[in-house]
């Protein structure tokens, strides 16, 4: 009974305790409750610890609820995203994937009447190319040797930074290499070189979704570095508040367009088509690189970049006979001219790829939010356990103190 009264007393005393000094939440609650006790108050207050426990318990409830909401939203959107995965595959099958700006050459050469490939240049070693002449076998090229490969093997080496390489397709070159002399080699470019790159970064509007927006922004910045150089320009189109906030800090003048509040209404193809139309109308581009997080599983999101080339670049590459060389062999049905059909094709490709990208990113956002909220509620639970222990210790210490005072008081009266 005495203890109940003391505990009630502790509650009443706690009120003036809290108001004078603002409690620094980083300091230990036990120490603060003891220090805050002014002279004359006999019990240690458990009010502070109790307040913290209440707030942590509320946080735990909120994060658990957010996890449930994210899980249900994920379930709704995951089937749609997986169904939309077939949409971009025909385009990649037709036009290939051209993320790289470097020009890659396949060299296939003969010696006499046998085919031998002597040198393999790795992509990091840049061969020293002295001179190319498209008509005659006059140039010399020195390649670093690594190992010999068998006949009819293809290998690749990279020449980059070359000013106008399109005229080199189908060139003949003679190589003088150690004691071997090569009669001819066919060079054909494999990669695609573009001048105007536009990076479309897809991110979420709301926060608390783990690190996916930061990875998208990091990937975009990396792509920007890869695609910037003399005579090249690179711009951003940003979808979503979070990426906008991060990119505005250092690349404000490179951002061409920002779009937010994508997920106000449930995502559908019509909305994304309008969005794609908007972007295509307002932005000049040779290549669009869409950066998003692909949803692999509830705990794994992979940053991905999809490339869509503009119709002029596609036509140029198809004629030059490189990566898209086979495109010329396709018959075109419909439309007045080939370029009109190609334009419709690239616009359609962009809207399809955007649709898939936006859905995958939305899935990744919900999945990341689920795992972030899950770890948050787990942390809150741990904190609550620790606070409960502290609370019990404080409570027992105050009871013991009161008991000691009473008993020592009583024994002083007797004895």
């Amino acid at each position, binding site marked *: 009974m005495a203890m109940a009264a003391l505990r009630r007393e502790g509650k009443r005393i706690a009120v003036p305790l809290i108001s004078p000094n603002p409690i620094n939440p980083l300091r230990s609650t036990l120490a603060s409750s003891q220090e805050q006790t002014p002279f004359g108050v006999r019990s240690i207050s458990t009010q502070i610890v109790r307040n913290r426990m209440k707030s942590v318990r509320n946080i735990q409830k909120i994060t658990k609820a957010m996890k449930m909401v994210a899980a249900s939203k994920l379930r709704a959107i995951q089937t749609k995203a997986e*169904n939309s995965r077939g949409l971009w595959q025909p385009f990649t*099958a037709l036009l*290939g994937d051209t*993320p*790289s700006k470097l020009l890659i050459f*396949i060299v296939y050469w*003969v010696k006499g009447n046998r085919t031998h490939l002597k040198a393999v240049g790795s992509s990091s070693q840049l061969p020293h190319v002295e001179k190319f002449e498209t008509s005659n076998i006059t140039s010399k090229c020195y390649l670093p040797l690594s190992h010999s490969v068998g006949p009819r093997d293809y290998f690749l080496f990279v020449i980059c930074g070359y000013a106008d390489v399109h005229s080199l397709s189908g060139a003949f070159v003679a190589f003088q290499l150690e004691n071997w002399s090569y009669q001819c080699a066919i060079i054909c470019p494999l990669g695609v070189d573009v001048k105007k790159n536009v990076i479309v970064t897809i991110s979420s509007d709301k926060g608390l979704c783990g690190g996916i927006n930061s990875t998208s922004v990091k990937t975009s910045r990396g792509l920007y570095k890869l695609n910037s150089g003399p005579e090249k320009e690179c711009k951003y189109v940003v979808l979503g508040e979070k990426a906008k906030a991060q990119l505005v800090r250092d690349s404000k003048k490179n951002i061409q367009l920002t779009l937010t509040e994508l997920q106000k209404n449930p995502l559908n193809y019509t909305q994304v088509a309008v969005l794609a139309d908007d972007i295509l109308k307002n932005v000049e581009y040779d290549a669009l690189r869409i950066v998003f997080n692909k949803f692999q599983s509830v705990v794994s999101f*992979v940053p991905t970049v999809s490339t869509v080339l503009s119709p002029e670049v596609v036509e140029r590459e198809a004629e030059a006979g490189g990566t898209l060389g086979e495109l010329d062999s*396709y018959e*075109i049905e419909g439309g007045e001219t080939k370029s009109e059909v190609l334009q419709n094709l690239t616009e359609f490709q962009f809207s399809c790829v955007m649709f898939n990208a936006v859905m995958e990113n939305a899935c990744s956002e919900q999945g990341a939010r689920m795992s972030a909220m899950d770890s948050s509620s787990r942390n809150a639970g741990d904190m609550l356990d620790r606070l409960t222990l502290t609370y019990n210790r404080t409570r027992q210490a105050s009871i013991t103190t009161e008991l000691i005072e009473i008993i020592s008081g009583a024994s002083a009266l007797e004895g």
Partner: protein
Amino acid sequence: MMRQGPRVLLSRAMRWRRPFSTDLQADTAGDSKFIDAWKKLNPNMDPPKTPISYMKPRPPTPSTIPSKLTVNLVLPYDSVLSAKEVDMVIVPASTGQMGVLPGHVATIAELKPGILSVHEGNEVNKYFLSGGFAFVHSNSVADIIAIEATPVDRIDPSLVQKGLAEFQQRLNSASTDVEKAEAQIGVDVHSALNAALTG
């Protein structure tokens, strides 16, 4: 003999088709170049993946004409047919109905709203497509990408008539070019639907 060498090689190279869309070898090589370039500039970051790594490689062009055509019909919301072996498909290209058999020449066709019929043995499945693109590759794989594809028996004739009347009226009363274009699209689609139901 030396001088003939380059010419022989050139003719051989021209016949040798660069591995491209039907062969994944070059594409993965292209990817590895991208990865190398990325690693040089951003050594501490993993390079992003590209769509090629998520795709199953397509079969190469066979030397003889295969007996069946592989059809993929994809919509934004669903893959209606994926890698289905059929005998023939008839696609509604904007230049008219186009029949595609195995061994068809590689084609890119723009589609207009109309009926796609898939012939498999004796059965014929008809879908009404809203428009899109069709690619026929040289390895007898046909990709058809459309926005909507509904089986013909699910179309309601009364709604079609109503829609047709409404869009025709809108076309007549349209003032700006944009309105005219939109009304014209509506009229086209509904007349195609009408034709699909009757024909």
